[in-house]
């Protein structure tokens, strides 16, 4: 019984193995981002795009391996709330940048 419980806990709350997998991937992604910036091997625009992609991938890795997000029915409402938040933040940041950029151009402040 104790074993069954442990095995189940391992599945639903993460195991040492899954934490270590997530950790190794996260370390590689972080190192890649710092490495790209420190090496100056790409153009500035290319580097910005690359580290932004690395950050998004790392956020997903953390969500899956550390916060144990998945597509199971138990998680449906968690994932829905998260999706709504991501959408809100995207509108918030995208909208702010769009409006402030337009304002700067129309006011000729740049």
């Amino acid at each position, binding site marked *: 019984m104790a074993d069954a419980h*442990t095995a189940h806990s391992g599945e639903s709350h993460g195991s040492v193995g899954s934490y270590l997998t997530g950790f190794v991937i996260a370390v590689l992604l*972080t190192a890649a*981002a710092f490495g790209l*910036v420190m090496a100056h091997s790409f153009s500035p625009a290319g580097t910005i795009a690359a*580290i932004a992609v690395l950050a998004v991938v790392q956020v997903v890795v953390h969500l899956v391996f*550390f916060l144990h997000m998945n597509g199971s*029915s138990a998680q449906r409402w968690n994932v829905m*709330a998260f999706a709504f938040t991501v959408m809100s933040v995207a509108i*918030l940041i995208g909208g702010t940048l769009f409006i402030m950029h337009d304002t700067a151009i129309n006011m000729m402040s740049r």
Partner: protein
Amino acid sequence: MAHDMTVDAAHAHDEHHESPVVFGFWLYLMTDCLIFGTLFAVFAVMRNQFAGGPTGKELFDLSGVGIETAILLVSSITYGFGMISAHQNKLGTMRMWLAVTFLLGLGFLFMEIREFSHMVAEGNGPDRSAFLSSFFTLVGTHGLHVTCGLLWMAVLMVQSTGKTVLSERMMNKLTCLSLFWHFLDIVWICVFTFVYLMSVI
């Protein structure tokens, strides 16, 4: 067999109707996400408004940021190991992992405060330029969250001392703090990428 079934059923019940406490805390984290989203939007608008003051390139020390990142990343899995011990009811091991996480968090906070006080001492505090105002607000808010997480962790370590079995209530508290702690690590990914690294490019 019947015994196993009850365990499975109880556990399945536990999984499919995740504690409302944990779900409620998840919703709180989503609102916290909006706060950080707002602060990131402000920083994105202000990031070039130096008012003749120093730029991020002149101010930021990437090796320090790298160490802070490493500390926070390691503290994420040490807390994860603590949660695994908690699920196995190994309370001594759990407290040990929480203590390790606590010390790592303290180390992170120490480095951040040192960085901030250096900047303020050199006259590059939040009052220097719009860029620095938004920088201190964003990174400072994250630091404040880490401080709250550390206080919470200390309280849970004290509350679990002398216990041999974790109550469901205690387990919920540990799970909520685990979500909080991992969430802060996610925010930090965005901080080091969009604040530090992008300012240095």
